[in-house]
């Protein structure tokens, strides 16, 4: 999967510098604060004036209003990710592709859920984001399939096909894809850990990112379900491969005292970005705010990794994640303004 490096470090320096320049062009925090006090037409105008102009112009004849903004943002994200896969060299391409497999999971589940609820094909097409290994044409072919079984059959060449095949019957029977989603993400993390540990140079930096990502996801799950689920259910939701073992997380979730949980996490994680955030959780009760705070801590820690491993996969992953959050922030802003939400409520949903 990963190409052999025969060209020296120059292409890596080139690609990572491009990512750093692109990162510098993302919308800054002050701009978001300004946009929070604007009306929807003003926000749309700003979105048009930034990197999203081409997509807005391209889609203006087919969509309008909030749908135009939302679809243009998704298209831009997909195009950007595909361009990045093209420009990253050597084994970084392999790592980036592995990382982007998460979009395949999201897209296939969107299609399966849409099909099971008889959503029209056009609507499903609008909300899929071809940012992973399944491009627009592959997703269109999946959307055109008649049944869930045929969709899974069409994924035979995909690296996660065994999981799709194994979980499909249970998901159709129960009418819920939640268990399948958990299993897919577990398989996804197993797959990217395998790619990182494959002996390819640079795998160490990628592995550090994966551990950070797994820790963040597990902590989000822990704070979301703490005290409300049985051990077996919890065990099924946790992802192995992070700083904490699954058993440790289950034990923590069963703990009565929040202080004890926070203290244990702080001591074991020992990451500056999380230490400060964890302190605020002693008072914070809103799961949503905790999730946003954990995401910010993760991005902050990833930024540190990108500075430590300057010419590795980390600067690329940092840009990919920041771009994803830029798109979701703009979507939250546009949707929030359309629904006449207060700026404070919209701001609470954004990662800035």
């Amino acid at each position, binding site marked *: 999967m990963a190409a052999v490096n025969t060209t020296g*470090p*120059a292409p890596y320096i*080139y690609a990572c*510098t*491009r990512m750093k*320049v692109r990162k510098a062009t993302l919308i800054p925090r002050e701009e978001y604060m300004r946009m929070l006090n604007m009306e929807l037409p003003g926000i749309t105008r700003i979105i048009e004036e930034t990197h999203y102009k081409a997509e807005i112009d391209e889609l203006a004849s087919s969509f309008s209003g909030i749908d135009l903004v939302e679809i243009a943002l998704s298209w831009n994200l997909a195009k950007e990710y595909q361009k990045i896969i093209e420009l990253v060299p050597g084994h970084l391409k392999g790592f980036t592709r592995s990382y982007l497999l998460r979009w395949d999971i999201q897209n296939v589940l969107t299609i399966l859920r849409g099909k099971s609820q008889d959503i029209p094909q056009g609507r499903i097409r609008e909300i899929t984001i071809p940012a992973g290994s399944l491009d627009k044409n592959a997703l269109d072919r999946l959307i055109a399939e008649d049944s869930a079984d045929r969709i899974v059959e069409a994924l035979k060449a995909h690296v996660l096909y065994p999981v799709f095949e194994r979980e499909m019957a249970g998901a159709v029977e129960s009418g819920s894809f939640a268990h399948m989603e958990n299993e897919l993400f577990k398989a996804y993390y197993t797959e990217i850990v395998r790619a990182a540990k494959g002996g390819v140079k640079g795998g160490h930096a990628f592995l550090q990112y994966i551990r950070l990502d797994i820790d963040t996801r597990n902590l989000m799950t822990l704070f979301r379900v703490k005290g409300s689920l049985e051990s077996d259910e919890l065990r099924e939701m946790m992802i192995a491969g992070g700083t904490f073992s699954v058993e440790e997380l289950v034990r923590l979730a069963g703990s009565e005292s929040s202080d004890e949980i926070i203290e244990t996490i702080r001591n074991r994680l020992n990451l500056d970005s999380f230490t400060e955030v964890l302190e605020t959780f002693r008072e914070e009760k809103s799961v949503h705010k905790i999730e946003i705070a954990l995401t910010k801590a993760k991005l902050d820690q990833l930024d540190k990794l990108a500075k430590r491993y300057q010419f590795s996969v980390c600067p690329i992953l940092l840009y990919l994640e920041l771009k994803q959050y830029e798109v979701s922030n703009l979507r939250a802003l546009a949707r929030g303004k359309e629904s006449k939400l207060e700026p404070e409520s919209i701001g609470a949903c954004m990662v800035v």
Partner: protein
Amino acid sequence: MAVETMTIEVAEASAVGFKAIGAGLAVGLAGMGTGLAQLGIGGAAVGATAENKEMFGLALLFTVIPETVVIFGLVVALLLLFT
């Protein structure tokens, strides 16, 4: 007598030869050092310029800074050969 004259001639010829080798090494090694430095700077410069055309002037300036190293090597080589 003839052997002594020949030894002096050989020594003088060797001195000129070693100077030439030293000059060659001075320029060659300095050139390699410059090349190594420009490998990274050049990669970053092209990357930055590809994203933002306005960076071209600054990127070019940073790329030529290691050229000073090869100029030092050249000066050492010239001093060796002509003094």
